[in-house]
């Protein structure tokens, strides 16, 4: 299962969906303002949209997650049994 999250890290939308994803053992890909969370989250298994990072001046060395581009995101979506989002 893959959760897509686009909300900023300080929002309820982010907290609720991230908690639900973790509770369900799902993969997560951060998009849009949610990529800011990748600078603080301890989780190294999270996917982060590199395009949205670049737009916001976040470099790959600043984050813990795994940067992905849109082609890789499509592969993740096709490979997942279910895609939930975008939150």
């Amino acid at each position: 299962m893959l959760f897509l999250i686009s909300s900023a890290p300080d929002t309820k939308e982010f907290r609720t969906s991230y908690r639900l994803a973790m509770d369900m053992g799902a993969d997560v890909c951060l998009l849009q303002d949610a990529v800011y969370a990748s600078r603080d989250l301890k989780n190294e298994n999270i996917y982060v949209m590199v395009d949205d990072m670049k737009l916001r001046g976040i470099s790959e060395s600043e984050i813990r997650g795994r940067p992905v581009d849109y082609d890789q995101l499509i592969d993740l979506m096709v490979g997942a049994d279910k895609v939930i989002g975008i939150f």
Partner: protein
Amino acid sequence: MSKRLTLFLNTSPYSFENTYTAMRIAEAALRKGLETHLVASADGVYNFLKGQKGKGLPHAADGFTSLMEKGLKVDL
């Protein structure tokens, strides 16, 4: 059977980044040969208005027109 991806867009084109995200996801999905659909509802339909003159943000109508030429199927 090829995989099918349906995107649901319900926000207006220039107040949110969703238009851009939807265009990028649709573009990559079409490139990978997925049957790609987009359903626009509520303010999402404004992405398809003619005569948009916005600058400094991804142009919604131009972007989606080009994707429809590549096979994106859109329902409002």
